């Protein structure tokens, strides 16, 4: 469809204005435009829809030392792409995150830089590490983090079908990373399957600190309204959804949902997941470490704190935990029984024999000998 130059410039002006609006306000803007010109408003609508795809299709090729290879995904504030750079020992891969041109201003830019700062301060084997950062030629910031070649938590669960023990082991490692974050006064605030990856070596990696926040000295986080706009409702805690607070307990909640999504038939893991994802923050595990301890209990066949312990459950746990000892005990019991039977049987037979002998000896001879 060809446009008149006047329409074209009207479209351009609308597009420029719509681009500065957050996603949820754009539809309304299009409706207002529709009152001026229905056909042109449809054009605008199509363009706004095509915008992220267009950005991915027309990628600039280089940021600093990094050459762009392909798109990995879309984050909250921009694209994440695979890039590589030359090092003295060969090529290095990285995941480059670049702020979307529409967001490169004010609080969004501050948010992006904060993410970069947080990532830079972290060093943990289960957290995708920071590699590099810089400004592109237009002055927009980018940063590069370790590229994790692996599967997202839900894809891993669906395709690899890990055992519950494997899930528990991965979860224990993930909890160690979250405990480290919380110790560093950082709340991830967006723990969900697509942010937890299992790499080729089978190690779990936590990524995307786009929603993460630093905690104040009193353990509360600032600017929760901003998080509310960015969070993924499906995995967010009730207090995050209401925008009342965002604390380490909110991460525990999301971890609970994550664990529940793949705890299979395990009643223990389900109980741990349930305790972590209570609506009331104070009823959840008080820390990632406490949750990790319960996962460790499960792995060691010890009673899990999240389950109300009755005698039968404890005895079953005890038996599973001490399978070898229990086997030995059972053997010992059998052996003891056998020994007792042998002894008593021999004694019985001996006394029988004695009776027989005594009865068969001629009475006279006995008397004579005496």
């Amino acid at each position, binding site marked *: 469809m060809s446009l008149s*130059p006047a329409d074209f410039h009207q479209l351009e002006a609308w597009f420029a204005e719509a681009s500065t609006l957050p996603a949820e306000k754009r539809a309304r803007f299009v409706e207002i435009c529709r009152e001026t010109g229905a056909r042109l408003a449809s054009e605008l609508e199509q363009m706004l829809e095509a*915008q992220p*795809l267009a950005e991915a299709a027309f990628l600039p*090729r280089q940021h600093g030392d990094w050459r762009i290879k392909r798109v990995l995904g879309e984050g909250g504030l921009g694209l994440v792409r695979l890039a590589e750079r030359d090092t003295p020992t060969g090529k290095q891969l990285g995941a480059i995150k670049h702020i979307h041109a529409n967001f490169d201003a004010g609080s969004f830019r501050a948010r992006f830089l904060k993410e970069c700062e947080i990532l830079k301060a972290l060093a943990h084997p289960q957290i995708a590490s920071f590699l590099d950062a810089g400004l592109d030629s237009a002055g927009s910031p980018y940063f590069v983090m370790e590229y994790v070649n692996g599967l997202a938590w839900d894809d891993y669960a669906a395709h690899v079908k890990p055992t519950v023990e494997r899930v528990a082991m991965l979860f224990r490692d993930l909890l160690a990373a979250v405990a480290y974050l919380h110790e560093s006064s950082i709340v991830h605030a967006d723990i969900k399957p697509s942010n937890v990856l299992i790499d080729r070596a089978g190690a779990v990696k936590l990524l995307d600190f786009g929603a993460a926040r630093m905690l104040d000295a009193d353990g509360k986080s600032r600017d929760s309204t901003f998080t509310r706009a960015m969070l993924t409702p499906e995995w967010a805690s009730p207090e995050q959804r209401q925008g009342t607070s965002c604390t380490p307990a909110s991460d525990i909640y999301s971890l609970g949902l994550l664990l529940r999504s793949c705890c299979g038939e395990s009643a223990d893991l389900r109980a741990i997941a349930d305790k972590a994802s209570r609506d009331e923050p104070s009823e959840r595990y008080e820390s990632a470490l406490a949750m990790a301890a319960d996962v460790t209990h499960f792995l060691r066949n010890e009673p899990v704190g999240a389950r109300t312990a009755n005698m039968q459950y404890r005895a079953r746990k005890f038996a599973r935990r001490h399978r070898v000892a229990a086997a030995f005990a059972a053997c010992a019991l059998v052996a003891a029984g056998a020994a007792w039977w042998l002894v008593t049987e021999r004694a019985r037979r001996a006394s029988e024999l004695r009776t027989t002998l005594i009865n068969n000896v001629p009475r006279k001879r006995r008397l004579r000998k005496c």
Partner: protein
Amino acid sequence: MQGKDWRSKTHYLATASRVMRNVVVDYARTRLSAKRGSGGKQITLSFAENAAAPPGLSAIDVIALERALDELETLDARKARVVELRWYGGLEVEEIAGVLDTSPATVKRDWEFSRTWLYKQLSCP
């Protein structure tokens, strides 16, 4: 800072981007006519990757892009030039601003609008 060198480098790249555009499009047209006997597939920029196409774009029909770029040229010549310099020449925003004697902000805005408009023309003609 080496004003003359910088100017000659961008001038070279600006000329090169026009040449590059012609090379890529001619290449695609040749491939298309050669293929016409055997079903005539779309020629995407990935075919011309060695010549010019930056990585990332794998399935934009070069000839359709050329058609859309021509249309863009009739509507807004500067925008088409921005695309040429950015896309075929690989110039950075700052450099394009220098070549076209405008501000980087304008180039950025032109580029954002043009690529979206072109993409839309290609996906829903």
